[in-house]
């Protein structure tokens, strides 16, 4: 995964609530160039309100990661709560990474 793709994902998440998102200056300019609109400043600050209408985001990337955010821990959904009434073996919830 390339750095810019990672920033896209971060941007997608943070821009839902943050007023501004600070990203590396050089990368900000690269993001802006995707949509042809200078929404990233050379200080690395992207104005969220201005960016909301800018088509610079890679929609293919976000289509892949467009699931509801933070309904689950960072590294995957917690899985169903154990069914305590069920005998062993019971369904194994997805363990957290790490």
């Amino acid at each position, binding site marked *: *995964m*390339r*750095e810019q793709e*990672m920033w896209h*994902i*971060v941007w997608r*998440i*943070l821009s839902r*609530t*943050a007023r501004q*998102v600070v990203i*590396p200056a050089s990368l900000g300019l690269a993001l802006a160039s995707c949509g042809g609109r200078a929404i990233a400043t050379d200080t690395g600050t992207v104005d969220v309100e201005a960016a909301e209408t800018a088509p610079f985001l890679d929609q293919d990337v976000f289509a892949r*990661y467009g*699931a509801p*955010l*933070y309904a689950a*821990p*960072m*590294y*995957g959904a*917690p899985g169903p*709560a*154990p069914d*305590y009434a069920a*005998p*062993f*073996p*019971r369904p*194994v*919830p997805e*363990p*957290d*990474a*790490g």
Partner: protein
Amino acid sequence: MLELLRQAGFSPRTCVWELTLACNLRCKHCGSNAGARRDDELNLEECLDVADQLAALGCQQVTLAGGEPTLHPAWHEIGRRLTDHRIRVNIISNGWHWTERQIEQARHARLMGVAFSLDGLEQEHDSVRRPGSYGRVVAAIESSVAAGLPTAVNTTINSLNRHSVPQVHSFLVEHGVFGWQVQIGTPTGNLAHHPELVLPPEDLLWLVPQLAELRRLADCPMKVHPADDIGYYGRYEQDLRDRASVVPFWIGCRAGCQVVGIESNGNVKGCLSLPSYDDGRFVEGNLRQSRLEQLWRRPGGFAYNREFTEEQLGGFCAVCRYRLFCRGGCSWTAFGHTGDRFDNPYCFYRQAVEHGRRDLLSEDPTAPETAFFDRRSDDVTAA
């Protein structure tokens, strides 16, 4: 990426709880010098209260650890209290004394799984743990699988067992293990006295691709989980993470942000692995003096992660292109190897850049990154 954690909210979703420091083994790589129990370990009433506090703070998963947690006489009662709160609970045992009684206790506690420590093939395992311990842990794995307990294994990679990763993987699959966590040893505790066992950082250049390959095995019923001290970035980053996650890449240490560690005497840390000795900088307080919520919400608490700034980074981490995502990787690994929480040589990307392995990267290194090693090479030559 601290902002992602901040937006999600600092909450102790995951807890690793050392029920006792008592242990019936003296492993050469034990990071906590386990052996004798602490003089001031929490009693059962205090432990049950801690369980209630964890639930009140929204904890979702607890790992019962040690020492050897089954040496705590009421480990299953504590586990049961946690699961009564609908917290998912598992336990990590060395398997030395795992009998039908412990299996029944695990059932009573309604554990979602048990994990055993297996550190390689027989000779490798016994040489770092105790003669005969391999046979016992394998028997524990077999009896747990046979009893229908979801059974996992943890393995610490060291210089002895590093060539056995594929064999151990096959062995565990054959034995019906459902999950395998792989980690590397950090020279704290007993391992600080056995430097010959410590995996050199450049070994990540083969370990990471190997784990990535094992994780890609589509028809394998066992999932491989690299621990937080293995990574980061480069060509295999997504292979190491859960691709279905909304953030399918490493976003840095979560100690004190989404993870909490509790020692058997009530000391609270962001991660149980972080050292308590020296100046105690990683100990946030004690549960005999403060409620967990007070410690968790204390302004200035867990500052090494919650109040991270880019300027704190040192060494290669300070110039790395992924520095704002990663924040120096695993806190314990960085501190254990360099004494600096924010300078971590145990990084796949760093090692690939240092050794000119562009074939292992997903994009070319930046000029400051290559200059870092060129400059260091010049310094060595001049000296």
